[in-house]
């Protein structure tokens, strides 16, 4: 980092403090007016950087007003391994629950998208990095089964940088099989599944439900991959190329159908539904 940058950051730090009216953009580094960002569904007006969106905001943006009916709201995580690192899983859960007001990282339900009924699932990256433990896996499997039984198109939006949740050990790993098995039945029933990848999706989430959409869509510049970049660097002992494991990288290598910015997401999905929903 050069002196120029250093000066700029210290200068901005001072300015960031008052009022919380301004946000520092992680994309361009500029200070942007918070209200303007919120109006644009949390997208930077200067560089189009997509800020993290909570699950409830996402639902509001993507589904028709008031149409969402949440399902399986009582599912609550337990601590089957009595898992303990430097913090206990129990404490980590309680903190995440307090910070987000959610019981776990996943929300599922039904709603309408431009007047078309859909089944909808979402993982919120603010809750333990959106990782998939028993509750997320179960909820996604249930909404998939609901979609299959009611012949609805299924949309799952993932923000799951945490992959399979370590704290639930093997139970988390096999949520990969649980979700994929349900999606396979949905697939065989001739029904549509659209996977929307948002920043970030890694590991066991990407290697299961999040990558097997009939259509895979990513938001711009999201970080999406399997193995964490640090682990890869340690293995191959060299620096990773610029843009590695981004949406753009995925598009170039043929893993997703399109990159769609947040403001166009709803209308793009509607177009797909027109072709693929019964």
């Amino acid at each position, binding site marked *: 980092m050069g002196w120029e940058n250093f000066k700029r950051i210290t200068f901005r730090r001072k300015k960031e403090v008052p009022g919380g009216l301004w946000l520092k953009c992680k994309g361009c580094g500029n200070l942007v007016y918070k209200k303007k960002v919120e109006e644009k569904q949390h997208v930077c007006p200067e560089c189009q950087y997509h800020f993290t969106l909570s699950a409830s905001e996402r639902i509001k943006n993507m589904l028709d007003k008031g149409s969402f009916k949440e399902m399986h709201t*009582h*599912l*609550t*995580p*337990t601590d*089957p*391994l009595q*898992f*303990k*690192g*430097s913090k206990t899983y129990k404490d980590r859960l309680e903190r995440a629950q307090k910070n987000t007001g959610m019981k776990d990282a996943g929300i599922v339900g039904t709603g309408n998208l431009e007047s078309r009924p859909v089944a909808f699932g979402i993982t919120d990256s603010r809750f333990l990095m959106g990782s998939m*433990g*028993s*509750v997320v*896996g*179960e909820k996604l*499997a249930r909404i998939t089964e609901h979609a299959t039984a009611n012949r609805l198109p299924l949309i799952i939006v993932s923000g799951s940088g945490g992959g*399979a*949740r*370590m704290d*639930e*050990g*093997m*139970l*988390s*790993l*096999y*949520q*990969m*099989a*649980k979700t*994929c*098995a349900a*999606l*396979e*039945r949905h*697939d*065989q029933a001739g029904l549509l599944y659209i996977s929307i990848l948002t920043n970030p999706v890694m*590991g*066991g989430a*990407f*290697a*299961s439900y999040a*990558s*097997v959409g009939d259509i895979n869509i990513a938001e711009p510049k999201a970080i999406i*991959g*399997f*193995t964490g970049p640090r*682990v*890869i660097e340690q*293995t*191959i002992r060299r620096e*990773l*190329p610029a843009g*590695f*494991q981004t949406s753009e*990288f995925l598009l170039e*290598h*043929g*893993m997703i159908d399109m990159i769609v910015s947040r403001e166009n997401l709803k209308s793009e999905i509607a177009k797909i539904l027109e072709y693929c929903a019964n």
Partner: protein
Amino acid sequence: MANGQSNSNGVYLDFERPIIDIEKKIAELEEYSARRGIDFSNEINQLKGSLEGAMTEIFANLTSWQRVQMARHPHRPLTSHYLNLLIHDFLPIQGDRIFHEDGAIVCGFGKLEERKVMVIGHRKGRNPQENIKCQYGSAHPEGYRKAMRAMRMAEKFKLPILTFIDTPGAYPGIGAEERGIALAIAESIKLMSSLRVPIICTVIGEGGSGGAIGIGVGDVLLMLQNAYYSVILPEGCSAILWKDGGSNQEASEALKLTAKDVERFGICDEIVPEPIGGAHRDHKQTVQTLKDAIVRRLVELEDKPLDELLEARYEKLRSIGEFSESSK
């Protein structure tokens, strides 16, 4: 031949040391007695007694981390050993038809007694050259895509599938990411959930996370007694949990990765006992015990109507997980 390999090669784990020492003494005494014509049978029998005692003590109470080390033991039987000792008339299936022949996963037709089967397994390699060729059992996307080819063929020709899981994880590299390692694993899992032939998966050594479950979905999951199966390697877990370098010992305990743990979660259906001292001390006996378990399970699965089989497979996967669901 497999018996006492660690002794003759001098490769053994720290906690095997007392056993190796006693074995050495026995061998020395036997040799001396034969050379000098002196009868040491009392002393030898005594030593054999303490050997048995030491074996029982050490191997009855292995810690989770010790089991991980057992699963990685340099003389542990690998997929290639099972291919030689369990399967005959093996006919390989190679290449993913797109990019590459991945040495880290071996696939092919084979016969288990008179039964025709499809075999899919991670291959670690038996010597340094093979190790490199096989990337120590860490597969690229092509490995899983080849495995899917083999699975579809098994379905087409109505052959049950046997998978042998032994990997530290999928390969962490640029090429693997570029060619969609996550997609390959996900597709393989998805496919296995609905294949219309019986599938028996066995964790024979290391069950390393996504790379393992990529060929780990089926009707029955067996685990060798000292195999482990984990959502993340203990080394990776300890690096995350204790930034200042926590212990693999603690991480292994926390992850609940032993066969017993995995059985308790309803994921492993049966633990296949290993000879005392571990699979590496008697390859033949290990293979025989596993063979008996596989054949017994296959007979059960083949008896079931296909729709029932698939429903049971789905129900098993569906039931994995622990949570509470009360409306308070």
